[in-house]
């Protein structure tokens, strides 16, 4: 069995450990004997909507986000739309999450259009939310670190990924964190969210494998070290958020 992962704009949208997510997806597939291939898409290259089963779209700096936003307004945006419509899965983090939404409204100046694949809208906030984040999802506890000033609000099509216990999440107001809509996932847990949240990594792997291999079952892995890192990070989030 094989799995194809596409890392979107790795050099522009990969701030602070985002690539840990791609490492986690590929390794958790390989440890199960699945042949995981990773391709990178850079701006200006053509996205092949038929190739990847799973996309990763990380966060970036302002300049990177501008370049990527322009690239996605052309054929690549259309290709990604088609890929996700034909049941590929995607994990988006921070800036990537914002760009999958309808638009980003800065403090001044015109709104920056997103792809509208997620029913969310983001507005520039006055505060920066920086710190450990702990949130409860139906599938498990989400543990990560957030660092954003954008405030994201969910529309009726999107469900929150998790409910915030410690931290700020989407906007610091409604206790929601991240969004799920079909096989599209967005989160503000930037950096390496998947290594410490193997339930989320495996959920994405299952969705991705189903695209070309039908219903599959994932063999269990020995997650002792993952659980130890989760326990330590949860303790940090509770005691010194």
């Amino acid at each position, binding site marked *: 069995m094989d799995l194809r992962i596409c890392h979107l704009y790795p050099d522009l949208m990969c701030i602070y450990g985002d690539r*840990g997510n791609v490492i986690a997806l590929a*390794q958790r597939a390989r440890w199960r004997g699945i042949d995981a291939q990773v391709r990178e898409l850079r701006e200006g290259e053509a996205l092949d909507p038929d190739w990847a089963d799973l996309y990763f779209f990380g966060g970036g700096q302002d300049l990177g986000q501008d370049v990527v936003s322009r690239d996605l307004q052309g054929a690549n945006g259309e290709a990604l739309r088609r890929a996700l419509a034909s049941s590929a899965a995607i994990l988006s983090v921070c800036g990537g999450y914002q760009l999958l939404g309808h638009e980003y409204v800065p403090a001044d100046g015109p709104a920056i259009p997103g792809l509208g694949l997620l029913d969310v809208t983001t507005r520039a906030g006055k505060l920066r939310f920086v710190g450990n984040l702990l949130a409860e999802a139906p599938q498990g506890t989400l543990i990560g670190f957030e660092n954003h000033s954008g405030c994201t609000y969910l529309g009726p099509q999107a469900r929150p990924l998790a409910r915030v216990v410690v931290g700020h999440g989407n906007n610091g107001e409604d206790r929601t964190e991240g969004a799920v809509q079909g096989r599209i996932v967005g989160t503000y847990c930037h950096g390496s969210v998947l290594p410490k949240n193997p339930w989320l990594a495996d959920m994405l792997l299952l969705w991705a494998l189903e695209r070309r291999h039908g219903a599959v079952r994932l063999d269990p892995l020995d997650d002792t*070290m993952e659980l130890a*890192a989760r326990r330590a990070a949860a303790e940090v989030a509770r005691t010194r958020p």
Partner: protein
Amino acid sequence: MTLRTLTALAAGKAVRAGLQAIGRGGTALPGLVALALDPEVIGHLSARLAHGVVLVSGTNGKTTTSRMFAEIARAAGWTPVHNRSGSNLERGIAAALLADADVAGRLRADVGIFEVDEASLARVVTRLEPRVVLVANLFRDQLDRYFEVDQLARRIADAFARLSPATLLVLNADDPLVARLGDRHRGRVVFFGVDDPLVGGRVAQSISDATHCPRCSSRLAYARVVLAHVGEWSCPSCGLARPARDVSVARIALGRDGTRLELAGGGEMKVPLDGLYNAYNAVAAIAVARCLGIDDATVSRALAAFRPAFGRLEVVEADGRRLRIVLVKNPAGSNAAIGALLERGGRLRVLAALNDRDADGRDVSWIWDADFEALVPSIEHAVVTGLRAADLALRLKYAGLPVSDMEVVDGWRAALRHAIDTTPADGETVVLATYTAMLALRGALAEMGYVGRFWED
């Protein structure tokens, strides 16, 4: 000297004496007290330095470069005041100055050499009038504290635009984020770089923070990539390119016991440190020395006798084993350290320590940007410790280190004891530690009797 400055000086000195009486090093608190009483204290005191103030900043290499330049200054017969304990915020500079001053504010030193945290640089340059400001590089580091590196560069460039024209800027031409920091400076800018065609690869590294042109946003082209986004860069679209180097290394010969630098335009220097990044540190120090009129023969003599700071490849002897201590605090620095370790060759025993205090960065995600995949095939055994040991162990697992080849050990002394005891006699363990983990390990090594106290350094 105003009464206010003298009061601040007296209070700071009293705090320092009190801390020393109870056996504490006190590299920051006395400065903090003095600054609270007189925010201008560092400007007033440093104005008395005959050779002026040199500020050394950048994400990586600050401590080594400023120590190198301090040795050069000493060799030139100058007397430096130097915040050498890695205390590189405004308060650390204040503490160093007031430790050097007498109660009337007279300084023993005649030159100030201060390493400055890159996030504090924009502020510090407004607090005193530096003669030279060196910026060595800007990389992603502690995103929770510094935020994005583009924003940091903008803040520094804004501050440089307001500098006195008398201030000399010394900038790394090979770092596109740094090379443009002086564009709006009214005074002179001196560039340094590495021009050895054999140094560096052709492929951009995955952790690059400056893939695109700072002027026109097109993708930069690299003839050579030395580290992250540092290298021989140019913009094929608008023609922006690395500025001409005033001080440059034409050839670098890396060896196990040190590095030989051939300077463009003639001259050769030896530095008893390995690692390509130390060649950069040396050329930066050479550039500063030349700006201040110190001759190459003096520079060469000082560099040849240079000894590394604690945690910068320093070696500690413990029961016939060597602990080679390497500070790792961000992806670019880690990759540079990993590169230097791999150049040495052989199988490695590692003690790795990860903390998430403010000074380390509270977000430990950065370990996923560091190229542990390159290091792991050379690791024979790893002991992992620190407040976030579990995160680091997980990183090593995903980088391919078999779980049976690593042990997580709680507690600094226990981890050191275990690492030392499992190292073969005459063998070596490489200690990779973040800043506060390194301080804690240093404290434990002192308790165990292997090193002296920190502030004697």
